[in-house]
């Protein structure tokens, strides 16, 4: 027996189409809430170690858990980078171990290229309306803006440095440090100092680095290591993050932070939800919560990391310490292309290792 399918066609006016889209958008937010309500009242977040992790627990995690009556578990990262290899394996198996992952920007590029993250529609996070547009990613908000400049010991160095190129001064022979973990930033810094732009990284870059070698005491790997080198006076001058410098300064270490005149770097962490996360609804509600002005302002006041929320205002002292206190200052930061960085990492790394052995 043959079935005949009759197809009914309907013409939809532009007005009805737009009204439908608007209604669909408006229903998304309650849908997120309903989804959260249907999910188990639980959330699992990758958290930083050390003081930053404690801050997140005290100000971003526990208050949200208490206000919503949900259980939030954290997985502590070693350092500030999540274990992307493990996360990829779990996402590929359909069972990621967390619902929210704060990432480095190169981790984010890797995760998107490997299709590991859930897209988040703008309507699902109402606070996006208050964020600077450049910090809204398809997979989550970028937060915790940290500035990379020069830290120097004010007791040992009487003539303050003003530029990246000052690191090469013979006055700092055997007194300088450099970041091994962010070696790609050191390469770009070298280019800024001598070429005026961060890329390309080539033989000339390494030739300049070779001249820096006599000044270097250590290539530190973690912020804690940099702190220890500065505290003990092993290192008098090193590129470092603004938050670390001012924290040490508050503890009595004679340090100052300089924004080099060739340009400074600003990086941040995209907070994303992996595919297959068990509690995406709660994850989005939490992301919305931590994006808000109050949560962001507390972070800036305690850690001097600037906010991506344009509604956050800073006292003059805090503004000086967060450095990127306004959109025009953010706009002056050196633009880093993380797609280019990830593509070139193997080649840059080999050059870096060859330089270290030369």
């Amino acid at each position, binding site marked *: 027996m043959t079935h005949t399918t009759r197809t009914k066609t309907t013409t939809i006016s532009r007005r009805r189409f737009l009204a439908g889209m608007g209604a669909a958008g408006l229903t998304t937010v309650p849908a997120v809430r309903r989804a959260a309500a249907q999910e188990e009242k639980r959330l699992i977040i990758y958290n930083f170690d050390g003081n930053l992790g404690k801050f997140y627990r005290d100000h971003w995690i526990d208050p949200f858990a208490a206000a919503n009556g949900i259980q939030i578990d954290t997985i502590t990262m070693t350092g500030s*980078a999540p274990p*992307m*290899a493990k996360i990829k394996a779990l996402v590929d198996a359909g069972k990621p171990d967390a619902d929210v992952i704060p990432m480095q920007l*190169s981790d984010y*590029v*890797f995760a998107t*290229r*490997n299709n590991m993250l859930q897209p988040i529609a703008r309507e699902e996070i109402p606070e996006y309306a208050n964020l600077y547009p450049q910090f809204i990613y398809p997979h989550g908000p970028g937060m915790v803006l940290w500035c990379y400049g020069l830290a120097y010991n004010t007791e040992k160095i009487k003539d303050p440095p003003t530029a990246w190129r000052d690191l090469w001064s013979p006055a700092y022979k055997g007194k300088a440090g450099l970041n*091994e*973990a962010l070696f790609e930033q050191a390469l770009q810094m070298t280019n800024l100092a001598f070429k005026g732009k961060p890329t390309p990284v080539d033989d000339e870059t390494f030739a300049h680095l070779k001249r820096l070698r006599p000044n*270097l*005491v*250590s*290539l*530190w*790997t973690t912020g804690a*290591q940099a702190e*220890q080198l500065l505290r*003990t*006076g*092993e290192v008098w001058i090193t590129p470092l993050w603004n938050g670390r410098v001012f924290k040490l300064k508050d503890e009595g270490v004679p340090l100052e932070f300089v924004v080099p005149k060739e340009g400074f770097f600003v990086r941040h962490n995209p907070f994303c939800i992996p595919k297959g996360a068990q509690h995406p609804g709660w994850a989005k509600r939490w992301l919305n919560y931590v994006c808000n002005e109050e949560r962001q302002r507390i972070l800036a006041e305690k850690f001097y990391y600037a906010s991506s929320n344009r509604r956050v205002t800073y006292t003059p002292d805090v503004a000086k310490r967060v450095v990127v206190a306004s959109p025009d200052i953010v706009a002056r930061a050196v633009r880093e292309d993380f797609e280019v960085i*990830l*593509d070139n*990492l*193997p080649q840059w*790394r*080999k050059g870096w*290792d*060859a330089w*270290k*052995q030369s």
Partner: protein
Amino acid sequence: MLGGEAAPARARWLLLAPTALLYTVTFLVPLILLLVFSVATWDRGVIRLGFSLANYRDFFADGVTAAIFGRTVRLAALITGVCLVLGYPVAAFMRHCGPRMRLVLVVLVVSPLLTSVIVRNVAWLLILGRTGLVNTGLQAMGVVDAPLKLMYNELGVVIAVVHVYLSFMVLPIFGALISIEPALEESAASLGAKSWQVFWNVTLPLSMPGVAAGCTLVFVLSMGVYLTPVIMGGNFVVTLPMVISEVVRNQFNWANGSALALVLLLFVTVLLSASARLQRRGSES
């Protein structure tokens, strides 16, 4: 009776089953995965499974990785040599001292293993740093005018690694020395051999199995040092494990990392086989 002999044999195999399962899951399967990844390719952060020897070719051809491997072997040989020179006298002293002193020495030699590698290395910073105990003392005594560079270089790495791996040299040598019949040495002495001749012709040859075991153990362990060169070497002393870590964690290039890990594993395996063969020949002769 075949049935009677087969039953105990089956039982023996069954007893091995849990260990075999554990090794299959924790060793064999990861090894196979390493092999599979080592012939894959890295394409802008995405691993593409297939068959390519590019990672192995690059090891020899890129001019950097093979040099780092050579440096790792040299560092391991240096650490082994220093451990042997320092460890043999300690083992010999332990052989001849009383049980109480022997116990004290064992505890002293093994104690670095009881603390974490980070704590150990941070302690060395306080001792060897520019304003550490050694430099402060030497400057106070007028021996030196300026601080010596005792760390953030190969010297610092060797000191810190020897400190922890000395026990892996001392204990095997001690085990070999303690098994030497004293009568052999007494006989040699009674036949007119001087003490150094007794040592050279009797004690040392008979202690070689322990020396070989200790050297093999220390060398293999030293090939895998990672955190100590990072902290004590200031990241200027680059070892192959550091390269593997960087390639896997920061470049997400598990293909290259797998190939490097397999090269290291193959080298250590060949070394262990050669050492075992030499020891067998030594015991046969």
